[in-house]
């Protein structure tokens, strides 16, 4: 089966985009605030998941998931956040990008909540003991955190989450249609290892989350 796209999709200018979607209501610009207000603070305190967008010095972008218990991102004050850097695969794409280019974007989700929270700012890695102490889980503190000086925060309406039926438990049946991570990895890495074996190793590594 092949997908027939004879030419690249047409590229539009901003004027052409505006001609299609129109201008935003002037009022909507006001919902962008330059700090973490009490509503944003409440949202972050209940959010166990956030996606973190970073870019390198050349502007090459990347987005990575971050998750922990609700409130894992700490609001240090109304202009300053801290994200724990828990053990991962040590590739550290986000951290490498942040050191080159501090501009980041974050999208916070709260399970069951249709609206999401977008927070943008400038980030840097830190090992400040008082910050890491607030992230201790099961007697372990992360070795690093990402501090974020907040420049913009705003709530995003719920249409995308409604359309996606993201919180509908029935939507989880979609996962059954996908190959397991073990099958994907065995194929992608091109190594002679049984998918079940890979799957078992992955499951074992998922046991230690902190």
């Amino acid at each position, binding site marked *: 089966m092949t997908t027939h796209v004879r030419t690249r999709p047409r590229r539009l200018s901003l004027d052409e985009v505006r001609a299609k979607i129109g201008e935003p209501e002037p009022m909507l610009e006001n919902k962008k605030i330059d700090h973490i207000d009490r509503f944003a603070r409440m949202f972050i305190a209940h959010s166990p998941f956030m996606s973190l967008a970073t870019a390198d010095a050349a502007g090459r972008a990347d987005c990575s998931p971050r998750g922990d218990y609700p409130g894992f991102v700490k609001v240090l004050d109304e202009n300053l956040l801290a994200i724990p850097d828990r053990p991962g695969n040590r590739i550290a794409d986000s951290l490498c990008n942040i050191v080159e280019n501090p501009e980041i974007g974050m999208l916070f989700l709260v399970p069951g909540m249709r609206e999401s929270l977008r927070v943008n700012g400038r980030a840097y890695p830190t090992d400040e003991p008082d910050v890491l*102490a607030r992230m201790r889980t099961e007697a372990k503190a992360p070795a690093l955190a990402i501090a974020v000086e907040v420049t913009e925060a705003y709530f995003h309406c719920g249409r995308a989450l409604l359309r996606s039926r993201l919180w509908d438990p029935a939507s989880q049946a979609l996962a059954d249609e996908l190959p397991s991570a073990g099958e994907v990895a065995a194929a992608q890495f091109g190594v002679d290892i049984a998918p079940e074996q890979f799957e078992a190793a992955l499951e074992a590594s998922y046991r230690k989350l902190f």
Partner: protein
Amino acid sequence: MQRTLLDRIDPVAEDVVSLVLRGADGPLAPWEPGAHVDVALPNWLTRQYSLCGDPTDRETYRVAVRYDPLSRGGSEYIHRFLRPGRALDVSLPRNNFPLDPAPGYLFLAGGIGITPVLPMLRAAVAAGLPASLVYAGRAAATMPFAGELRSAYGDAVRIVTTQEHGRPDFAALAAELAPGTLVYCCGPASMLTAVEAAFPPGQLRTERFQPAPKVFAPDQAFEVACARSGRTVQVDADDSLLNALQHAGVPVSSGCREGVCGSCEITVLEGEVEHRDDVGADEGRMFACVSRALGPRLVLDL
């Protein structure tokens, strides 16, 4: 777990709130002075708080919570976001700090460490026993219940504000301690250290609300055999016994996961244990969240 509704949340001192939790399904489980409960917060965190109300009141539990500027999300959540009407699951009371029979008592409380001492002092006075309290805190405004203690017990209560007067003279208190009098101390680590240095260990009972800093041998992998279920579970060097048991499907209850609350107590049948908790395990028992095997293998009554 017991279902409760948050009846009231009131400031009782600078950065301290008192919570009154009402049983949602009738009377709450009974408790003795010194007991604490785990409170399950909406943000998935579980925190331990000493019961500081009246044990004869079976309708409600009272706890008091100090806001910790280094909060990981427990006290901060309670102070910022909890409002009356919220449903909260609360564990059955556990008592790692029971009031043992004695001819008299000296209570030493530091700051929020006053909470377990409140019902203890009340019980001792009600029993007609000589009991006194030295209650230390940075400044009067930071000390919950100081006023009501003074008015209820008069000169039996001494309030020491450390900012003005420094720490109480524990050596002097120890020198005038009557034989047989038991000393109960709950407070910050620095106070416990000073108290432990001043009083004879046999007469002293302490409770910590934060793990004591300790140094241990490097973590080693070990194996545990569960005698009742016949299961064997491997515990990796970077894993905890509690985590390994729970992932293997061996049921063990858990709370703080850092050796303070005592929820994950298990019975050890064979093997040597390095106890890393702050509860103080009885002979033949261990706390699976932090304690480990000293040798390659333990046999557990699980």
